């Protein structure tokens, strides 16, 4: 593999891992604070699934870059603008409706993405995708039943869900707008062709929202930037928490 493609592969693995990592961190914040014991455990399980996937991507990324960096260095020691997670996953846990809507918006994308990556030309990516897709199928199932239950629930739950949908919908399109790296990887048959997934994504999502008696926001102005390192004001706070131990006690081992 040429150096330029190697660099792009490294960058691509970070793109894949960062979404799961930041969402996993957001869900981790809820540990011990879930609305019910059972839901608390469910969300923490999802967080752990996502971190497991991140480890796979970053272990591989460390192998690709082969300059002594470890998976932990890659996860913990970048600066804010070097994280490539989308704006959607860094949005806060405003209430349970936000948690569920954010999760569901991401799960639809995540499941479709992995469905493509199981056919990647890169064997390691295929292996990770095959393992992850079963986990993510459950995430999607879990968040979709909650979308229906709360959307088509009480007046209050419906209103809260609609607020969350209205707030978070504008971050969805970024998932399908490829960065230069994502385009290159798609052309090489390693990565997923994101624009080709967009139509199906919105079709599925809108069908679910309709079933949940929720309205699809109209005339939305979509927000972009996270995948290129331009994050919202929330990201700094997430990283302050996330990186605290490594920054305070460099090279510490757990």
């Amino acid at each position: 593999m040429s150096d330029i493609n190697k660099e792009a592969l490294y960058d691509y693995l970070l793109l894949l891992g960062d979404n799961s990592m930041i969402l996993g961190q957001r869900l981790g914040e809820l540990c011990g604070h879930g609305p019910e014991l059972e839901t608390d455990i469910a969300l923490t399980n999802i967080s752990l699934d996502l971190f497991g996937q991140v480890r796979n991507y970053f272990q591989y990324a460390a192998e690709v870059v082969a300059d002594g960096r470890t998976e932990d260095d890659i996860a913990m020691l970048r600066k804010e603008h070097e994280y490539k997670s989308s704006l959607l996953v860094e949005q806060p846990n405003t209430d349970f409706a936000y948690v569920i809507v954010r999760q569901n918006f991401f799960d639809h994308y995540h499941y479709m993405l992995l469905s493509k990556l199981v056919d990647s030309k890169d064997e390691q990516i295929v292996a990770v995708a095959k393992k992850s897709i079963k986990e993510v199928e459950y995430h999607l199932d879990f968040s979709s039943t909650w979308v229906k239950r709360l959307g088509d629930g009480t007046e209050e739950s419906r209103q809260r869900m609609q607020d969350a949908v209205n707030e978070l919908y504008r971050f969805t399109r970024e998932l399908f707008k490829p960065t230069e790296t994502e385009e290159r990887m798609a052309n090489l048959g390693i990565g997923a062709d994101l624009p080709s997934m967009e139509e199906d994504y919105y079709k599925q999502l809108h069908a679910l929202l309709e079933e949940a008696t929720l309205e699809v926001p109209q005339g939305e102005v979509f927000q972009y930037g996270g995948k290129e390192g331009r994050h919202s004001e929330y990201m700094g706070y997430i990283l302050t928490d996330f990186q605290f131990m490594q920054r305070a006690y460099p090279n510490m081992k757990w």
Partner: protein
Amino acid sequence: MNKEWPIWEIFIRSKNGLDHRHVGSLHAADAEMAIQNARDVYTRRQEGVSIWVVESKHITASNPEKSGEYFEPAKDKVYRHPTFYKLPDELKHM
């Protein structure tokens, strides 16, 4: 209105061919949620391959006050156990 979710009893089959066994209980608003919660709470360490859920109110239990008359008379009836048969060697796992 009672805001607590109802309690469900959870039964897990650990392997195909074995029985579902009672493993505990949890809260859930409906059966579908009970299944998902059971999956998340009781099978996260590979405990099972199948889940049954039953809302606790549907279970009728024997009366603990009657345990004397119900269960103690069986204590001295050893002849009800098949321990007096000689099993052929080919028969294992009895």
